């Protein structure tokens, strides 16, 4: 088991390294490198100056060498400066990360609070009207474009009803949780609606699978009350794959968070990545993207560990 975990850890590390190189390379292909931007904004700089500056910053070196230099510095904790914010990248990242965790955590909680009971209901009455209605709802949730959903929420709740703010983090000059909460409702609603459909369908499948197991039949045959069979035995067993899928869906959830944050001007990591790419702040984009990748890989590792821990049928080498 320990050996397995070490290997999975090393594999994840390898993926992270590959990704860091790939993303570093892609960043080099972004429109306008820093010097070009500088030359454009400062008419006093000649092309010769630009070439000299590029040499100075090592931008004329081959990609592999530049990457290794960057990696070396990064490993020593020097992740560079954000051009847009004029601050070290890590300083920018920290608060954004907390905001994203808050958004994703709340959305996940809401999505699960809906998906688990609804999925179980669906599984207990397979092929009934209720089941079909739930499936329709779940598929609709999967099929709706998140950005459009956000747009429609803004139209209804901000533009027409005027109940909630259309975006931002909190009212200027106002303090306290209540005010923050007002700004959180629509983003959380949009992100949780985006994931609830998938979770519901998965919950239903897991529950149906679990109800088919032998020991459920045995428990029934022994006269264990149906409620107990369902809630104590079947549901508990069905939660094993669900826990795993939660960790595995982190990447998808993060993609959803990026859209939601961008739509509601919510200052999280997703919006940070989007803004830094659009604003040519490639250092910030690189680090935040890698950080997101790291988090996703970590959650996948956690999923594996959970699975190993919860499911006794699996052995490891």
């Amino acid at each position, binding site marked *: 088991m320990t050996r397995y975990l070490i290997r999975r850890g090393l594999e994840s590390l390898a993926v992270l390294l590959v990704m860091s190189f790939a993303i570093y390379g892609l960043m080099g*292909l972004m429109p306008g490198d820093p010097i070009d931007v500088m030359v454009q904004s400062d008419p006093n700089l000649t092309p010769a100056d630009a070439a000299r500056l590029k040499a100075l910053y090592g931008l004329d070196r081959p990609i592999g060498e530049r990457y290794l230099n960057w990696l070396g510095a990064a490993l020593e904790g020097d992740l560079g400066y954000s051009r847009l914010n004029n601050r070290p990248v890590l300083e920018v990242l920290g608060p954004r990360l907390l905001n994203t965790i808050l958004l994703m955590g709340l959305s996940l909680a809401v999505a699960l609070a809906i998906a688990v009971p609804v999925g179980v209901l669906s599984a207990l009455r397979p092929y009934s009207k209720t089941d079909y209605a739930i499936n329709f709802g779940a598929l609709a949730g999967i099929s*709706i474009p998140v950005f459009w959903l956000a747009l429609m929420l803004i139209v209804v709740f901000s533009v027409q009803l005027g109940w909630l703010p259309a975006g931002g983090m909190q009212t200027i000059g106002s303090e306290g949780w209540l005010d923050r909460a007002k700004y959180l409702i629509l983003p959380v609603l949009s992100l949780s609606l985006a994931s609830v459909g998938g979770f519901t369908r998965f919950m239903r499948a897991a529950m*149906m699978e679990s109800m088919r197991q032998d020991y459920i039949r045995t428990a029934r045959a022994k006269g264990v009350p149906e409620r107990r069979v369902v809630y104590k035995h079947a549901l508990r067993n069905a939660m094993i794959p669900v826990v795993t899928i939660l960790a595995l869906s982190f990447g998808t959830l993060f*993609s959803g968070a990026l859209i939601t944050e961008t739509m509601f001007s919510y200052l999280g990591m997703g919006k940070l*990545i989007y803004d830094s*790419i659009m604003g040519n702040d490639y250092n910030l984009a690189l680090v935040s993207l890698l950080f997101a990748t790291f988090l996703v890989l970590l959650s996948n590792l956690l999923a594996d560990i959970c699975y190993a821990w919860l499911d006794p049928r699996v052995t490891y080498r």
Partner: protein
Amino acid sequence: MSIREVMAAEDGVETMPRHESMARLTFARFLEHRMAVASAVLLFVLVVLVAAAPLFAGALGLDPNDVDLLNRFAPPSADHPLGTDELGRDVLLRLLYGGRVSLIVGLVTALIAGLIGTVIGLFAGYFGGWLDALLMRITDSVIALPLLPLLIVMAAVDLGKLGLPPDLATSPETSLYRIVLIIALVGWTTVARLVRGATLSLREREYVLAAVSQGAGSLRIMFGHILPNAISPIIVATTLSVGTIILLESVLSFLGLGIQPPIASWGNMLNNAQELIYEAPALAFYPGVLIFLTVIAFNFLGDGLQDALDPKALRR
């Protein structure tokens, strides 16, 4: 998407109907799935409508890219059945032409992704060993990655720096090919896993052994015997992926990184929707509804095909 993929991967191999009588049975089962039939009809109507876009344009005497700044945000009228947008362009025509782009991008990308996934799945499943381990690690990694940010990066890449001439690198047509390419590059994973699963089971079949014993080469066995018998999970997964791909295309285009104007797509028609939301909320409504309907239709269609092609598997 990842939930869908995991579920799909666990469904395993399905068997395909064997001949006309079986095909008829499959069709009958499909007809039983009412939502799938409704979806098929909806998609058919949609395809006919977008295919007939030039006819509508002719009837209205308009071009979808005709700008009419004196006639911005016009309400629906005989000249403009669904009104005009912020540049005075006809909304109905743009929806129809945008639908062409969104549907074609969705279908073509799904086919390319399906092709990539099929080849990867076949090789992994057939050869096994280190190749399988490697390919599946790659697949799992791609599934796990935060795809949208990566797609944004790939969509933002300056193709001029890859050696494309400047005017080609920034042309709207190039944006079309680019979007197909980058989404296909990450969209093959579901099919790869399904095909691998099917291959693992099919390669133990006696007709495969029979081919081996006759001296058939690996390619012949993979493409001549295994692939034709693994076609139904491929069809189902590819159909389902069309929806996912249309969603991805729309969000990238919405963010201004996908299909570039003046080519219309449902996604980029929503480009300015957020700024215009107070002035013209209806502009934001139509394209979104069409994306939603198309995607849900492909999802139901996939479900229906799954039930029809593989009656044994757990329904949906």
